[in-house]
């Protein structure tokens, strides 16, 4: 599925005189996986970017300059992403790139962007994207390592010392499984059972039975995404396991509760973003206005619930707009410098403060420990 979407300046706006000052324009490129295996991540990302650009241009753009978004769909294919990144830089002459839905596509865009010295904000999870720090590459999602740390912190508070893990064998599950095993020691927790499942599997009762029968297991953690975690949750209740069940940020959405079933999902905990609990945030929470506005705009326009992944695109775009505004220039080098000086920018994922050593700019406080209560998400204090 090759689909090329180009959102350019709406001519009508110029005719109405709303954007009369727009002599020059700021060109932003994006390559996301709106189709293919990562479509359920990339599709909301593409929609979010298009919506935000339209919104911003309707308000007059940045410093009086219109934004032109050149959006490509790489279908989750790293080779295509590389081609599109090259095209964005050489043919479309963009000043910055947002995108790279998966770690694979991000890695190939990053190589091209670094060479051409064009700032790139990645929307993928892996820590390798920003570690070691590369001068022109930034990213918005927290890493899976941080998700592990947040979960283990919560387990520690409940006095849990021995856990079972059941992970998907897809890229997301395998990477998080490895990161969790790497940091688990720091929390004095032992992984007593370590099982896996294929993301297309229909039944995980065999693995869960094995975990249940392992001596001393006090909680179960399921790193994974897609339908696997929903099936794990159902099978968990089917077997009548009473131990606390932790899911990952990969399924932090209302869709998870719906697919797993309200009864089965009851009591499940996971580290999620403020976006999921927009209504429950305290009035003085700095993220409240951002998430409420994004949620209302996205759900009003597309008639589907917002998700964490669309939120990553929102934050990537917000970082860029903030950087261009502060720099007062759309030169790639100026945008890069401004991005690195981002400080206290409230996004949907967390509050970003970048530095030359940290191109992610989030800490563990970006995650909120959520629990399913009476069929909807609630914040664990």
């Amino acid at each position, binding site marked *: *599925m090759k689909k090329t979407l180009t959102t350019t300046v709406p001519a009508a706006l110029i005719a109405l005189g709303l954007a009369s000052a727009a002599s020059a324009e700021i060109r932003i490129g994006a390559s996301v996986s709106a*189709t293919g*295996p990562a*479509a*359920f991540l990339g*599709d909301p990302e593409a929609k979010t970017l298009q919506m935000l650009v339209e919104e911003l241009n309707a308000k007059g753009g940045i410093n009086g300059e219109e934004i032109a978004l050149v959006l490509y769909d790489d279908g989750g294919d790293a080779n295509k992403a590389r081609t599109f990144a090259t095209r964005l830089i050489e043919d479309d002459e963009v000043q910055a790139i947002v995108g790279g839905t998966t770690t694979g596509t991000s890695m190939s865009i990053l190589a091209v962007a670094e060479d051409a010295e064009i700032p790139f904000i990645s929307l993928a999870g892996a820590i390798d994207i920003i570690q070691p720090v590369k001068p022109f590459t930034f990213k918005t999602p927290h890493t899976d390592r941080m998700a592990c740390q947040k979960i283990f912190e919560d387990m520690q508070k409940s006095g849990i010392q021995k856990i079972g893990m059941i992970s998907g064998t897809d890229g997301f599950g395998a990477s998080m499984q490895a990161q969790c095993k790497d940091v688990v020691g720091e929390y004095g927790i032992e992984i007593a059972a370590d*099982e*896996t*499942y*294929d993301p*297309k*599997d*229909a*039944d*995980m*009762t*065999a*693995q869960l*039975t*094995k975990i249940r*029968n392992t001596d001393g297991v006090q909680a179960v953690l399921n790193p994974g995404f*897609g*339908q696997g975690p*929903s*099936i794990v949750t*159902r099978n968990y*209740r*089917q*077997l*009548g396991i009473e131990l606390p069940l932790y899911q990952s940020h990969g399924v932090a959405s209302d*869709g998870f509760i*719906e*697919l797993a*079933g309200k*009864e*089965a999902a009851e009591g499940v905990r996971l580290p999620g973003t403020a976006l999921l609990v927009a209504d429950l945030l305290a009035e003085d929470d700095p993220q409240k206005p951002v998430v409420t506005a994004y949620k209302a705009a996205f759900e009003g326009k597309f008639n*589907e619930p917002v998700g964490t992944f669309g939120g990553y695109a929102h934050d990537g775009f917000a970082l860029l707009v903030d950087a261009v505004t502060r720099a007062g220039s759309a030169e790639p080098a100026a945008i890069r410098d401004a991005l690195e000086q981002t400080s206290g920018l409230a996004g949907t994922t967390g509050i970003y403060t970048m530095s030359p050593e940290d191109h992610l700019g989030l800490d563990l406080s970006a995650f909120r420990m959520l629990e399913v209560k009476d069929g909807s998400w609630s914040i664990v204090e």
Partner: protein
Amino acid sequence: MSELLQFLFSGLTVGAVYALVALGFTIIYNASDVVNFAQGEFVMLGGMVTWFAHAAGLPLPLAALVAILATAALGVAINKLAIEPARGAPVVSLIIITIGASVFLQGAAQLVFDKQIHSFPAFSGDTPLRIGGATIQPQSLWVIGGALVVFAGLWLFFTRTLLGRAVLATSNNRLAAQLVGINTNFVMTLSFALSAGIGALAGVLATPITLTAYSVGIGFALKGFAGAMLGGMGNPKGALAGGFLIGLIEALTAGYLSSTYKEAAAFVVILLVLFFMPQGLFGRKSTERV
């Protein structure tokens, strides 16, 4: 003991899904020697159309019926538009056409429906049944029952009805079948309609357990194909046994050895069986009568 029983239940649940998909392969294969790689997409459509119709307000049984009929009609369309115009082409070309049809259906499904994961309620609720210390979902019994009913139906069709024998005759020698008055075009159309319908039925029954999305077809097709190969391509008995066997091997390996090796264990068994019995467990020997 309850542990073993739980592993067996897990294997039967998964195996029944594989078996149902494997059964769908048999009819088209019997009629034309073509392995229809779009079979998985029929399963996907069964689930997706039912979800779509149910979400649009139809009661679940009616939505399921709509899905099965719509998918069967689509099967006929694929035969008329893609397979029939290529009549006379070698079997390999026809198989490649079915791969093309599969890619097309998957692409169309993500445009017509969406890219999210969906499910609909289980037919008899979600309260698991407890048997001897192990549990099984009522929906699993629906899938197992569905596989057995489809198997019985196919077995009767191929051995007891004139039409079923006409299908076998078409596969054996199309020209000879025409000479004795069999309408081979009709046989092909019928086999696509039945295969697609059975695939959609598998999707309808399995979705409350496996969940569905536009992309699930390939996974179903691969496991179903493996089941059909293990049992013997074209034989309903083989499809049933092969599907259940793969499910059970996977569950027992996951339970007693390690879940990391469960896919590998299943494929090692398939390779071993095919090495010693190239026709599969119940496959017919290809003898040419002169």
